[in-house]
Structure formats: structure tokens, C-alpha cells
């Protein structure tokens, strides 16, 4: 095997030096390996050497057998080969790795005055022809040297061996470093290519680097807290997930430093306790490299060496750079993963945004913000929105995962801290706060219409979590603000339109006295009817707007067409109802139109005129219910005059019950009559009463006649009014 250290350029250099020495010493020189194979071209001053090299296998072997007697030489020596007196200089030298011995052979040297004697010896020896002839040539060609001369040549050849060894070693080191570097580059490219397999990078690194036994990465998991997240190498598994704090032990110290740190010969250092305790056992040295991005410490890469290993300084330096680079890759991987997670959470936000925009309702948007923020944090536990109320002294909250009383207490705190501050948002867009219970909350102001109007707060398990979630939550809160702004704008627009409508209404009714007065009454009636429970609270303003629109002329109305499309549609129905009054047939008007028709009808009704019992297109249930309401209203109003404030606590259902009981006692109604009266009060028609009591309509009429007679009233309306009068009294 040709040693890899004998590369072509090395061989050429050694050859060159060998020739120089040969010329100088006038000796033939040969450099061989342990098996006698020449490693470079011989420098032949004697034909013998040439013959030796070219000789047949057997002859060569015999020669080397002679040489091998001197194996184990450590210094250059004058050696007798074949015949005493035929001398060679043999100088050993080592391969760069130190595992192989090479030899420089130089000869032939003959003591002065011995040539003739040696010629005879050779001739008389028992050597076979070829060898004898060779040996003879050797002797004949050799120069006779004095003992001093021989000693000088020995030293010179020794120097040649040393030089060859040095050349080999330096060439070898060059190659070694080159190869190592390329291996290490391989590690780096693996680290770059496969960021998620840091373990492989570590393994590869340890293969290449001589003195690394365990390699790992400790990740920062919280302020001042680190956890070993990856570790490879024999005996390192005990370290997995081990935690330490800043300043604790070697790793903890490294965490405080911006620069790589290195310790050796630390077997007895107490700071090594953490690593020993976690299964590393005795070790010699430790290298630590901080992994940072910007000013943020992400973690520490560390390498444990169990034994002292002499490493080439250049390589060592290169390793350090390399590890720093691996650290960079880990850092960028961490940041990228962090960003990816943000993006993952941002992406669905787009859909959520669309959904929220379509909601156009403050309450629903708040529900969504709370629900979505819970989904977006790693360890969701609770979220709350505190939003200003229309009244300045109150706030509105929507919360999940928080005890109700705590939520309210927290809301007060937030309201004082953030909502009342007029300075506006924190520049970071969020704040971290700790509740009295020690819960960490991240708080985002909801800013719209030029002011902080709400706060979205989410509970977090750690500051670390806050760092990871803050961006995506900020995006959510910002989005919420924008959408609420649009809802707000819409509301402002509606308010604007409503103010406009009111102005137009006021000016329109100035010209039409009666109708204006009636419509004003209708507006009041709608409010009261909503409180009475006849229509939903949010229906009243709608119908009031419609009523106001009814007073306007066509031109004004068409101006408001876009703003009040819904109201105008109902108004159109209302007008159709007016036109069809008294007609027969099937009508299907919307309920708002029916209510409007009824309310405006009653509002316009002169108190002296007996009202109708039916309006075309209005359901009898609605009509009767409203009539009952009017009766109650009337009695309550009279009552209010007598005893101030009675209306406030007025409850129609209770009044109804009390009234009926009172009437039953007072006028002696039978059980069945009481049942009929109850149904009358609840605005049932005769037909319904008949069905409910399972009697004929005719019988119902008879009962009613009896009841009216007993109560001395003439019709339903009066009967109902009387029931409520008693109920209130």
C-alpha cells in the first residue's frame, strides 16, 4: 500500500533532497518502506543499486532479509550487510502518524584498506552466482573510507532521514487539515440543509472533531431559564430536558456571556456538578457557544470532552467558527419556526377577518375576538374584552375562562388603567400586566374612532409565551379595531341619517298640525308598547323612523331612500294597507307593517269615537293585544297622576292576575266565567276561547254576555280596562 502521505509532491521533494545528499556523499541512497519497497527513485551512484532495484525477486528478498535484521533501529547506524566489512548506513524515520517506519539506505561503505581482502571473501563465499556477482560489483565500486569519514556520512544520512520525516509530517498535516476542513464543511452544509435535524449535525460534527464526546443545545424557555432540548453522544441522554438557570454551573455562566467560553481540566471544579449529575460523569473539558439573535439569547451550544486530546490549533479555531455557525443556523431555524408559527396563525386570520366584517355587530365581533384569541395562544386559559359602554361610568365585558366576579374586577382595573388614559396606545401595541392573583395578562388596546375604547386581554402562562404570541394577537386586536371602526362608522352614518330624518320630520309636521300631533303620539306609543312587551325593544326605533317617514312628502322620502330602505319598504306596505282598508281577501303584510298600521290608527283615533274591532290586514291577535295595551296605558296614566311613580314598578302580568281575582270576588263570577275572562284579557278571540275551553262559540258569547252584565260593562275593551284598574288598585 502506497502510503497516502507519499503523495506525488511529497515524493518529488524527498527525491530532490535525496539526490542532493547522494551527490554530496557520493553514496547511493534508497528510501524504502518496511518491506523494502522503494518509495522514491533511488539515487544510484553505484550500479549495484540499480541492479538491486531491477534484480530478480529472490535476490531482492535476500538483500532485504539482511536489512530487516536492523529493524528496530531508532537512530542512523552503520550496518554490515552480507559480509562483515560491507557497510551501509541505515537511517530510520517515522511516518507522520508514527505508526510506520521508513528507512533511508545509503552505501556502500568500505573501511579503507579492506577492499582486496573483501574481494577474496566474496569470491570464496558460498553465494550463488548472481548474488556473488552483485556483491563483487558492490565491493569493487565502493570507495574506501576512513572511520571518521564514515561517521560523518552516517550523520548526514541521519539528517536526510530527519528531513524526509519532517517533509512527510508537514505534508501530512496540510492534507489532514484540508480533509478535516472539508469534512467540517460537510457538517456545516448538513446543518444548513437540514435545520430540523440538529441531532444529525451534532453527530456528524462529533465524528469529525476528535475531542468531542457529547454535544448538545440548551434552549432558553423563559427569562433566565434554560432547558437542554437536544443532546447527542454517548452518555449524554441523561441531560435531555435537564433545566438550569442563568449563572448556575458552567452552562449557566455561559448563558450570561456573549462570547464562546471554554474550560479545561475541570474534573474537580464544583461548577461541573450539573453535568456530572446528569449522567455525563467525569470529563476533562467543556466548550460553550451562545446562540443569539439580535440582542436575544436563544440558547447555548455545548461540547463536552471526556479526555484531553491534543488538537491542531488551526483545526480547533476552525471548529469554533464552525460551531458558531451551527449556532447561527439553529438561531435562524428558531426564528424561522417562530415566524412560521406566527404565519400559521395569521393565515387563518384572513378568513376570520372576512367573517368578522360580515358580522357588523359589535357584540358578535367581541365574541369572535375572545374565541379567536383563545385559539391563537399556546396554552389557552382565558380571554376577556373590556369595552366602553355608552355610559361613561360603565364598561361592557365579554369573557371566557374567567370567573365572573373576577372578570368584572379585572374589567374595572383595566378600565382605570387603560380606557381612562387619553394618551393612546403603548407604542408596542400591547402591555403585560399581572393581576392580583398573579395571572400574567397580555393586553391590547382596541382603538377606533380616535380613542382607546376597549381592551382585549389574554392570559398567558409565561413571558416566553407572550413573546411568541404577541404578534399574532396584535394582528387580531388590530383587525378587531379596524372592523369595529367600520361598524362604528356605519352607526355614525345611521345616527347622522336619523338626525337628518328628525329634522325633516320636524319641519314637515310644522305644516300639518293634526297629523304631526298624531305621529308624535304614535312615537310615544311605540316606546311604551315596546316596554309593555308588544314589540322587541329594537323594533321600536325602526317603527318610529317609519312613522316619521310617513309624514314626509315623496321628494323628501326619495332622498332618504338608501339610508332607510327597510323602513320605506314597511311604509309602502302600510300605505297598501290603508288603500285596502275595508276590502276583503287574504292579506299578508309583514308584522312591522301591521304594528305600524295599528299604532298609527290608534294614535289618530279620537277618544270619543268608538274604535273599530278589526283592521284589514292586521292579525286579530295583534290588534287585540294592542287594544288591551291602550286600555292598560290609559288606566296606568290616570294612576300615575294620582300616585307618582307607580308606573315604574308596573307589571302587567301581575296586575292582570290581581285584577281578575278582584273582579271574580267583587262580581261573583263562576269558575268558567273566570276562565273566559282570563282569556279575554289575554286577547283571545271568541273562536280561540271556544277552542281552548272546548265549548262552542255560541256558549262563549253567552258567557261573555253574562260576564259583561255582572261587571256592568258593555264590551271587551271596558272589561279589560276594569280588570287592569282593579289590578293596579
Amino acid at each position, binding site marked *: 500500500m502506497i502510503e497516502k502521505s507519499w503523495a506525488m509532491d511529497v515524493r518529488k521533494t524527498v527525491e530532490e533532497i535525496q539526490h542532493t545528499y547522494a551527490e554530496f556523499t557520493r553514496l547511493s541512497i534508497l528510501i524504502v518502506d518496511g518491506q523494502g519497497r522503494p518509495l522514491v527513485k533511488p539515487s544510484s551512484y553505484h550500479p549495484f543499486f540499480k541492479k538491486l532495484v531491477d534484480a530478480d525477486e529472490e535476490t531482492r528478498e535476500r538483500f532485504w532479509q539482511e536489512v530487516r535484521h536492523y529493524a528496530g533501529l531508532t537512530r542512523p547506524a552503520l550496518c554490515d550487510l552480507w559480509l562483515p566489512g560491507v557497510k551501509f548506513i541505515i537511517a530510520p524515520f517515522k511516518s507522520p502518524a508514527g505508526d510506520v517506519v521508513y528507512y533511508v539506505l545509503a552505501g556502500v561503505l568500505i573501511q579503507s584498506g579492506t577492499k582486496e581482502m573483501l574481494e577474496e571473501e566474496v569470491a570464496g563465499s558460498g553465494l550463488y552466482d548472481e548474488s556473488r556477482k552483485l556483491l563483487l560489483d558492490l565491493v569493487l565500486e565502493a570507495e574506501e573510507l576512513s572511520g571518521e569519514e564514515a561517521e560523518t556520512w552516517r550523520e548526514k544520512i541521519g539528517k536526510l532521514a530527519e528531513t524526509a520525516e519532517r517533509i512527510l509530517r508537514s505534508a501530512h498535516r496540510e492534507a489532514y487539515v484540508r480533509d478535516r476542513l472539508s469534512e467540517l464543511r460537510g457538517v456545516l452544509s448538513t446543518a444548513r440543509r437540514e435545520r430540523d435535524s440538529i441531532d444529525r449535525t451534532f453527530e456528524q460534527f462529533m465524528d469529525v472533531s476528535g475531542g468531542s464526546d457529547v454535544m448538545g443545545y440548551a434552549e432558553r424557555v423563559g427569562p433566565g431559564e434554560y432547558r437542554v432540548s437536544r443532546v447527542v453522544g454517548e452518555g449524554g441522554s441523561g441531560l435531555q430536558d435537564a433545566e438550569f438557570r442563568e449563572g448556575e454551573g458552567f452552562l449557566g455562566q455561559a448563558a450570561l456571556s456573549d462570547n464562546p467560553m471554554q474550560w479545561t481540566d475541570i474534573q474537580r471544579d464544583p461548577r461541573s456538578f450539573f453535568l456530572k449529575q446528569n449522567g455525563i460523569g467525569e470529563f476533562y473539558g467543556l466548550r460553550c457557544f451562545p446562540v443569539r439573535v439580535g440582542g436575544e439569547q436563544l440558547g447555548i451550544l455545548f461540547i463536552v470532552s471526556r479526555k484531553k486530546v491534543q488538537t491542531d490549533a488551526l483545526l480547533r479555531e476552525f471548529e469554533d467558527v464552525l460551531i458558531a455557525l451551527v449556532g447561527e443556523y439553529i438561531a435562524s431555524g428558531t426564528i424561522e419556526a417562530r415566524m412560521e408559527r406566527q404565519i400559521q396563525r395569521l393565515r387563518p386570520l384572513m378568513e376570520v377577518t372576512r367573517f368578522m366584517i360580515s358580522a357588523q355587530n359589535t357584540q358578535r365581533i367581541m365574541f369572535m375576538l375572545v374565541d379567536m384569541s383563545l*385559539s391563537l395562544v399556546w396554552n389557552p386559559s382565558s380571554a376577556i374584552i373590556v369595552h366602553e359602554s355608552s355610559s361613561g361610568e360603565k*364598561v361592557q365585558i365579554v369573557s371566557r375562562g374567567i370567573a365572573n366576579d373576577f372578570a368584572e374586577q379585572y374589567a374595572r382595573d383595566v378600565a382605570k388603567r387603560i380606557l381612562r388614559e387619553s394618551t393612546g396606545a403603548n407604542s408596542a401595541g400591547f402591555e403585560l400586566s399581572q393581576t392580583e392573583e398573579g395571572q400574567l395578562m397580555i393586553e391590547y388596546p382596541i382603538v377606533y374612532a380616535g380613542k382607546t375604547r376597549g381592551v382585549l386581554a389574554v392570559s398567558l402562562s409565561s413571558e416566553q409565551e407572550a413573546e411568541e404570541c404577541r404578534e399574532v394577537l396584535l394582528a387580531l386586536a388590530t383587525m378587531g379595531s379596524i372592523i369595529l371602526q367600520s361598524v362604528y362608522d356605519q352607526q355614525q352614518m345611521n345616527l347622522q341619517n336619523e338626525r337628518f330624518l328628525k329634522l325633516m320630520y320636524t319641519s314637515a309636521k310644522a305644516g300639518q298640525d293634526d297629523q304631526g300631533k298624531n305621529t308624535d303620539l304614535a312615537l310615544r306609543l311605540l316606546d311604551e308598547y315596546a316596554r309593555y312587551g308588544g314589540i322587541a325593544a329594537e323594533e321600536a326605533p325602526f317603527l318610529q323612523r317609519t312613522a316619521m317617514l310617513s309624514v314626509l312628502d315623496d321628494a323628501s322620502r326619495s332622498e332618504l331612500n338608501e339610508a332607510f330602505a327597510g323602513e320605506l319598504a314597511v311604509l309602502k306596505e302600510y300605505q297598501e294597507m290603508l288603500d285596502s282598508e275595508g276590502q276583503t281577501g287574504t292579506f299578508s303584510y309583514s308584522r312591522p307593517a301591521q304594528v305600524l298600521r295599528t299604532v298609527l290608527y290608534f294614535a289618530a283615533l279620537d277618544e270619543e269615537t268608538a274604535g273599530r274591532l278589526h283592521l284589514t290586514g292586521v292579525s286579530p291577535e295583534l290588534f287585540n293585544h294592542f287594544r288591551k295595551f291602550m286600555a292598560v296605558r290609559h288606566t296606568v296614566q290616570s294612576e300615575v297622576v294620582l300616585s307618582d311613580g307607580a308606573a315604574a314598578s308596573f307589571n302587567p302580568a301581575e296586575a292582570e292576575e290581581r285584577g281578575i281575582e278582584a273582579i271574580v270576588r267583587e262580581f261573583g263570577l263562576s269558575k268558567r266565567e273566570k276562565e273566559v275572562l282570563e282569556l279575554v284579557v289575554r286577547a283571545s278571540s271568541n273562536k280561540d276561547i271556544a277552542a281552548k275551553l272546548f265549548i262552542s262559540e255560541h256558549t262563549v258569547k253567552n258567557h261573555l254576555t253574562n260576564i259583561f252584565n255582572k261587571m256592568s260593562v258593555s264590551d271587551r275593551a271596558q272589561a279589560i280596562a276594569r280588570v287592569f284598574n282593579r289590578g293596579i288598585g
Partner: protein
Amino acid sequence: MTISDQELLKLQMECTMFFENNPYAYETARGLAKKLGRAVEPLQIALNRLAAISILDKRGEGNMAIYSYKTPYTQSEVEIH
């Protein structure tokens, strides 16, 4: 059954939106899978997670589990003092 964070989050959002839009709906994972056009198993994970963070109510177990929207606590009249 493994599912990526991103997938899970997307499903969670979809489910949340579905229930916010249909606050009176009662759904099994099977039923919702049909409605949203999603595979049952990942959906079940998302639904259970939503139940764990109390966005949804869950009654019953396994395939028979029914999920419904839990309206957040709302209070519109908190005095600031």
C-alpha cells in the same frame, strides 16, 4: 392520528366560525365533518381542543359526543366606581 399545528388551528377557526354563526347548533364530529367538508378525525381533535378551552360544550363521548357553542360570559353594565 397526528395533525400539524397549522391544520389544527385552521380547523379550530373553521369550527369556531361555524358555531358563532350557528349559536344554537348541536353537532357531532361526523355531522360537522359533512357540513364543513373535512375529515372526521382531525375535526374531532379540533373540537375537543375547543371544548377544552371552553369555547364549545361537549356532551357524550367518542362518536356520540355532541358539541355546541358556549356563549361567552357577557356583562354590559360593569360599574367602574
